[in-house]
């Protein structure tokens, strides 16, 4: 458009919103592009390194029995964890949503709470109770000839530590799906002559598939990228092998090749879920009223026993281990102050990572949502690369990259923050996108028509309206950064410790008393955001009220 013919105030005001409406601030676009490029740098670097060595070298590094074994173990672990997690989450979700179980809400919260324990704390609890010198093992061995001490190491231990503490990802999605499923489906099925079982498997379960697939994907990705549990429980998967290759050999090509296989595995999982989900019919019905609840009757006590046993295993046990060893540590005269330094380290990096990540997500989201174009949407999509990148892979890629090109950054907190941003940008993007999408653009248009510039509108209108959503996103990034282990372990400057690295190194050496206090602090810090940002929103309706029936 040409310049306005008259530059008198009122006439200008009529002309200019039209003139610059389609353009997005070049400054913000630059920030968004740089963020997206950084988010994809590790991926690009790994691919270039792995392929750059030539196909023979690449094949020589990955086409070995070692890789095949790693792949088999990793896939077996993923399959086992997902299957066990579904087996726990599905009945759990059903009893807390669709039965007359007493104190359903409390059981639902208890069922989701194991999320506060990172995998390395779960592994620590497992070793400290069921390991060779664990309390439960010693007790059993004192009274019976059964020897169970060795069982926790290897596949069984990794399976338990991961499945028992990650099933809440599936559980929370299933709770929402079951609650939103219109009871008319089940009632139609019953009226058509189908009993409870046929109704569940023929009508209910097929409609839970989106939640099952989505939750299983989260659990599967968690499992392939987990380092804490498999390293403590000595089950050699890709992450552990990559770490060992990096530590022992400093062999870049082997580590890069293994990383590439791990990325392909993660991308394959995501693509597989996408394929399954695409074949699902679109959903239209939303529950308009509460379902009638099945009567547990005589099943009430067995169900409560199952729920109670589960809570003992994945809540009471880990917490008990931490408290017991924490008390021992105090008794033994460990200085309480020793937990201070890693706590400050954790809180500091998590806070900075949360602010930076959410801050960087804003231009990307606003560009994609408010000025949709092929470019802006592509930038938004590729910025989510971290979803498929295990922390150990991001960390190694960054180490290789900066030691070669940007040595001053090596072993700095800044590099650690970059790794967190790449890893957790998808979480921040999701939260920011939900927040921005919920604000009608009419508000922004009103601000523009009242004379605000584009950046002024962002500052005075959009940001205040999306602030609660941004805070939630920051809280999530804070929470996951606090618990992050492998990238922190590889990238931290010498002497810098977080709660996660302290717990892991103590647990790996079997010194539980040193792991307990940081563990307790970590759980205490993680508890409020886990409940407020993850558990409570999932257990409530989309409109924010706890499930209650409509009037009829």
């Amino acid at each position: 458009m040409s310049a306005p013919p008259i530059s008198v105030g009122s006439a200008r005001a009529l002309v200019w919103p039209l003139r610059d409406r389609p353009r997005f601030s070049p400054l913000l676009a630059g920030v968004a592009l740089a963020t997206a490029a950084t988010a994809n740098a590790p991926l690009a670097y790994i691919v270039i390194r792995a392929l750059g060595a030539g196909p023979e070298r690449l094949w020589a590094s990955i086409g070995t029995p070692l890789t095949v074994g790693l792949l088999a173990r990793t896939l077996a672990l993923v399959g086992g964890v997902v299957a066990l997690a579904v087996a726990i989450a599905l009945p759990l979700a059903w009893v807390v949503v669709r039965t007359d179980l007493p104190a359903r809400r409390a059981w639902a919260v208890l069922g989701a709470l194991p999320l506060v324990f990172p995998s390395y704390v779960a592994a620590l609890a497992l070793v400290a109770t069921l390991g060779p010198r664990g309390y439960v093992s010693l007790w059993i061995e004192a009274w019976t000839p059964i020897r169970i001490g060795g069982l926790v190491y290897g596949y069984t231990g990794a399976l338990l530590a991961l499945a028992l503490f990650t099933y809440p990802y599936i559980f929370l999605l299933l709770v929402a799906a079951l609650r939103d499923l219109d009871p008319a489906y089940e009632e139609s099925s019953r009226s058509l002559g189908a009993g409870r079982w046929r109704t569940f498997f023929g009508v209910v379960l097929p409609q839970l598939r989106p939640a099952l697939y989505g939750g299983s994907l989260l659990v599967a990705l968690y499992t392939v990228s987990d380092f804490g549990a498999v390293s403590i429980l000595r089950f050699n998967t890709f992450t552990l092998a990559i770490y060992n290759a990096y530590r022992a050999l400093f062999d870049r090509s082997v580590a890069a090749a293994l990383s590439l296989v791990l990325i392909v595995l993660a991308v394959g999982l995501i693509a597989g879920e996408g394929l399954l989900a695409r074949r699902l019919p679109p959903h239209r019905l939303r529950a308009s009223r509460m379902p009638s609840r099945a009567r547990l009757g005589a099943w009430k006590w067995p169900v409560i026993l199952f729920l109670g046993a589960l809570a003992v295993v994945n809540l009471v046990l880990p917490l008990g281990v931490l408290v017991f060893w924490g008390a021992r540590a105090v008794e033994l005269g460990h200085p309480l102050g020793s937990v201070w330094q890693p706590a400050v380290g954790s809180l500091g990096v998590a806070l900075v990572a949360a602010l930076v990540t959410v801050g960087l997500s804003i231009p990307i989201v606003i560009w994609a949502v408010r000025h949709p174009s092929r470019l802006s949407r592509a930038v938004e999509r590729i910025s989510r690369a971290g979803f498929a990148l295990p922390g150990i892979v991001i960390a190694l890629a960054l180490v290789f990259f900066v030691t070669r090109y940007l040595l001053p950054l090596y072993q700095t907190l800044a590099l650690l923050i970059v790794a967190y941003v790449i890893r957790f940008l998808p979480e921040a993007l999701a939260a920011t996108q939900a927040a921005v999408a919920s604000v009608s653009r009419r508000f922004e248009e009103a601000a523009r028509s009242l004379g605000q510039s584009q950046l002024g509108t962002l500052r005075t209108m959009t940001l205040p309206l999306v602030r609660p959503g941004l805070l939630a996103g920051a809280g999530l990034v804070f929470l996951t950064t606090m618990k992050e282990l492998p990238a922190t372990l590889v990238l931290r400057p010498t002497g810098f410790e977080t709660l996660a690295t302290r717990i892991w190194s103590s647990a790996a050496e079997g010194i539980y008393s040193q792991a307990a206090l940081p563990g307790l602090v970590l759980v205490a810090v993680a508890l409020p955001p886990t409940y407020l940002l993850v558990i409570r929103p999932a257990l409530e309706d989309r409109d924010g009220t706890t499930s209650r029936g409509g009037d009829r």
Partner: protein
Amino acid sequence: MIGSPPKAIDVAGLVVYRGDSLAVDGVDLEIEPGIITSIVGPSGCGKTSLLRAIAGFERPAAGSIAIDGESVVGPDRWVPPERRRVGMVFQEGALFPHLSVAENVRYGIRGGPESRVAEVLGLVGLAELGHRMPHELSGGQQQRVAVARALAPSPRVILLDEPFVNLDATLRERVREDVRQILDRAGITTVLVTHDQEEALSVARRVAVMDAGRILQVDAPEDIYLRPESARVAEFIGDGQLVPCTVEGGTFVSAFGTGSCEGTDGDGRLFLRPEDLEQLSEGRDGGVPATIVGRRFYGHDVLDRVRLDSGEEIEVRCLSSTVLPVESVVRIALRRRLYRVFS
């Protein structure tokens, strides 16, 4: 009851609680076989709870229900929904979204003849759409498939729970008429629950008016409209207003005129619908003088609000071709022979 043929549905002394509140408060209701009966009432009157109790989705606190003479609910008697042979059609059809139209219909007749699927789909005029998925159908088609699915296992009765409420106004009337004809042709006992009085009156051969958990009146639609048994029924069905009057020996006296009535002597309330009054044209005697103070124009007819000199107001329905300008002074008169007066 010996000797009389069993009712299609026989509800006696039914009490249903929804949570802590009483939804159905001692209902007795007999549903005639082979016709459509509607249950109409304001939202929250308990009509849906009553329907769901018949289907087996609510457990009554007291009372009994028999279908075709077989007890399904009673003291020490509970038949689960899947063994009641009762077809149910929900608000939005509730077609299983992961199954095709034909698979939806087949769901209730597992092991039955394949020809039955084509038969009922033909009955609702959708024989060609068996391979479609539910989300590929329009709202009206979905509702017809839902009816076909409910009919497929040859149930003893069909229950419809506000089945047209989510269709837009223009579509609603057509789908309603389609479904009425399908069910009429099938000759199946049908109970339709609705809050829409026009729907209740136009679709059903018998209408049950429900309020606050109780059945107020069960009658043919024209009797419900013209001869309501209580002021509550009169007020709920159609427009109209209650005006004070005095009755003596079958004649009432009111501000709007006098006439014959059913009702006991003394002070009462006369129920007047807008079409019970008329504006007298020039040159006709009688009537009461009044001023037109407001108007709602509907096209084919007009609702005029008129005010008497004494200050009382009432609505009068007139043909749009004969109306006078607002603020004109007219004379209004009662035009029916017999009126209802409630004490």
